[in-house]
């Protein structure tokens, strides 16, 4: 049995809606991510995915429930849970190099160590030669590479990714997905990745949590069995298509139920 890295127990978030009444974003969500595992959360838009990952990352607080990292409860944001956001969130006044060094600078790591670590991860995401560029000079895909390098350079226990490729065009997205699959294999980083893109979920995940519509609950957990390396070629394998169909059916069912409610 592999060690459990991140665990969520009974996470519930209720927003105070004032006169309109309270809104339950997520309802008793349990999940676990094992050490070195690549876990996907997929669900219809508005199901509380972002609320969930923000609570896991410590940027939002749960109304009820606990987040455990290596078995210990965590509260508030920290370097142990690195996050990558859809909007890149690069510091526009810092060069690529300085952006990647940011977390290490916060830890007051020595300059040489910072530079060496930054170089390693800039190489890893394929941005050598762009060390001195400013974020505004980079394309969306390159910005997200910097954001990934910046988080990895900090050596977090787990990488939390909130629809990181959602703003990219289709071709760039596939390139980034292959890059991330490659990084995950090379670094053995534990990753929890949120998406509404079923292809992305099946392509990248070892396991997939499928969420229901709002209030978000875990509807089902699937284990993905796709032979060989994950690449764009996996997208046409029968195993891929079969898993994709199962998730599509579930989400279709969710949308039918939502329509019935209305």
């Amino acid at each position, binding site marked *: 049995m592999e060690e459990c890295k991140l665990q969520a127990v009974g996470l519930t978030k209720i927003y105070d809606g004032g006169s309109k009444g309270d809104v339950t974003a997520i309802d008793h969500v349990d999940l676990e991510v094992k050490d070195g595992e690549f876990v996907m959360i997929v669900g219809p838009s508005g199901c509380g995915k972002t609320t969930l990952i923000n609570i896991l990352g410590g*940027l939002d607080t749960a109304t009820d429930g606990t987040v455990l990292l290596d078995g210990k409860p965590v509260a508030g944001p920290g370097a142990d849970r690195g996050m990558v956001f859809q909007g890149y*969130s690069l510091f526009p006044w810092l060069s690529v190099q300085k952006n990647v060094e940011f977390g290490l600078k916060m830890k007051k790591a020595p300059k040489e160590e910072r530079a060496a670590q930054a170089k390693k991860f800039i190489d890893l995401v394929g941005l050598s030669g762009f060390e001195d560029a400013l974020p505004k000079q980079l394309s969306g895909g390159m910005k997200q590479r910097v954001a990934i390098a910046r988080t990895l350079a900090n050596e977090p226990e787990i990488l939390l990714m909130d629809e990181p490729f959602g703003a990219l065009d289709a071709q760039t997205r596939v390139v980034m997905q292959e890059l991330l699959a490659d990084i995950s294999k090379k670094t053995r980083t534990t990753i929890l990745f949120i998406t509404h893109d079923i292809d992305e979920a099946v392509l990248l995940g070892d396991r997939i949590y499928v969420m229901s519509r709002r209030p978000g609950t875990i509807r089902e957990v699937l284990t993905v069995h796709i032979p060989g390396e994950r690449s764009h070629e996996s997208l046409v394998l029968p195993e891929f298509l079969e898993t994709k169909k199962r998730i599509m059916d579930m989400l279709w069912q969710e949308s039918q139920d939502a329509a019935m409610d209305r």
Partner: protein
Amino acid sequence: MEKKNKRRGVNMEHMLSFICFALIIGLWCVLTFGGFVSELFLPSPFAVLRRIGELYADGSLWANCFESTARVVVGWFWSVVVALPCGMLMANSRKFSAFVQPIIEFARYLPVVALVPLTLLYLGIDETQKYTIIFLGTFFQLVLMVCDTVSGVDANLINAAKTLGASKMQVYKEVIFPAALPGLMDDFRLTIGWAWTYLVVAEMVAAQNGLGYMILRSQRYLATDTIFAGLILIGLIGLVTDFLFRILTRIVAPWHERLADR
């Protein structure tokens, strides 16, 4: 091609600025040389130039410009020194904001001229009184501007820094301050302009030198040419200040993209 057009656009703008000044001076010439207005009310441009020459020759031009500029800069500087931390705290702490906001909003509406008697009573007629008038005139506006600018910093950048392990102090120093810097430079630039308005208020009473004093004393002797000389000098110092601030902003925040620069 695009670059060339942009160039031409900039030249065009310079041209228009120049034409505006030329029109005003032209109108001034027509009014005075055409004999439409008495010399007593509006001296000719040459008379004003001659007067500036005389002031330069007897040394009072530099002395007055220097005194006034020093008062403006010192008063404004203290206003910045206090307003910056105060505004940053207001933007980031609801409690602090609740504590100081009402008094600041209240003080903001007090006309500075009405405070002159009190400053004279408390501080006498030395330089401190003049700095205080300028401070009072600019501080309450500036603190709200700083608060507003700092509140406008992209929350995603702050979240990214927190998940990279930045402490509260580090978030202020490494993220909020640099992100807000271009906006703050704009706030400072606007406030130093207002400081010149309050300078004249400060020099109205109990000053022995300065451009405001020179203008007010000239009224007594109906020396309209000196009044215009003083006004033109204040305007020119204002133009230079503005220009310096724009250059300084480009130096401290070269990453910042302005709409006008695109």
